[in-house]
């Protein structure tokens, strides 16, 4: 595991995706709770750490794009799509994530990962013991299952945080007092 990199406010992903520019009221407001911003960025970097073992970075980015599409969060989908474009990705797999269904994926392991993603994003109460056990059955180790579950749960957080901040930014005519 790599050590924490230093938090750099200029490279904060949520600010960038939500369109919060330094000096604006919403940016200032958000960074009054800077511990949250730092841990949010730290979570993002940890979950997409290339050195994380058990589930590949491309698999994680496919999960992120699929979750952003289902939520939906167009701005986060655009981010994860751009990240995927920096890697070699199977065209059929990308197409299933962009506009198809997990059932269309030939690879059993990725199919299980995306099916689990859909359940947790769309209707988490249906994610029962049998749903979880399909992951080790498809070859994921327990640490890989933990990484995947944390990733999907984090994406559920990140999409709502971005949606809330985007609405707050549009609301805020209090710029004059900032």
């Amino acid at each position: 595991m790599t050590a924490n990199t230093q938090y750099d406010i200029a490279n904060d992903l949520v600010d960038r995706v939500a369109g919060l520019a330094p000096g604006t009221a919403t940016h200032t407001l958000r960074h009054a709770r800077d511990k949250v911003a730092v841990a949010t960025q730290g979570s993002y970097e940890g979950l997409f750490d290339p050195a994380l073992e058990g589930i590949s970075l491309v698999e994680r980015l496919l999960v992120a794009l699929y979750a952003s599409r289902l939520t939906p969060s167009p701005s986060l989908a655009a981010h994860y799509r751009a990240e995927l474009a920096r890697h070699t990705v199977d065209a059929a797999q990308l197409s299933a994530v962009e506009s198809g269904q997990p059932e269309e994926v030939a690879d059993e392991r990725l199919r299980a990962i995306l099916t689990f993603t859909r359940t947790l994003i769309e209707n988490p109460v249906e994610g029962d013991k049998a749903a979880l056990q399909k992951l080790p059955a498809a070859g994921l180790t327990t640490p890989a299952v933990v990484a995947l579950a944390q990733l999907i749960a984090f994406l559920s957080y990140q999409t709502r945080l971005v949606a809330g901040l985007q609405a707050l930014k549009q609301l805020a005519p209090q710029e004059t007092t900032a």
Partner: protein
Amino acid sequence: MSDIIRSHGFTNESLDWEAWLDVVELDKATPEQVAVLEESHPKAKTSDYYLFLVHQPEILRQRSAAFNAIMYAPGGMPRAERELSTTVVSRINGCVYCASVHAQRFEQLAKRNDVIREVFDDPRTAGTTDREKAISQFSIALTEKPGDVRPEQLQALRDVGLTDAEILDLIHSIAIFAWANRLMLNLGEPVFPEAAPAV
């Protein structure tokens, strides 16, 4: 606790939680895993939840930091209202374990549980004041339809007296429970105490 509430499968009683897959055995944990357990929660070393998540210690460390910064930070939205919001989110997502924990936290902070009973009975109409109603309704909206959130919904929060700093705290509370619920709900299950008479 003043009285037990049970409604629609939810309760304010203390529950345990069991993981569905293998947890890290404490005597085999790495120094990093032990350190992350110690900074996550006072009882983490005996909790299935933390012993399962510590399979990925750095991810757990960051998650605990975000959670604690959102739920326990001073100032801003009163902590009882953050707990109300997270109880509503847990009720909507169907996370019985989280709803129980945060119903109890609300009661400890607010010294009452009237609104918790309402949340368990029907979260869509819950709230003993206009402010509580607005908090509950936005908690449901951002949980169920994050793609449809509009500035007008935040204006409704301003209209009942929330400052923008409080609105940010509310957004954080709702969002962090989208995260928390999906761990508690999808990686294990609550264990109920021996049957006791409900009120």
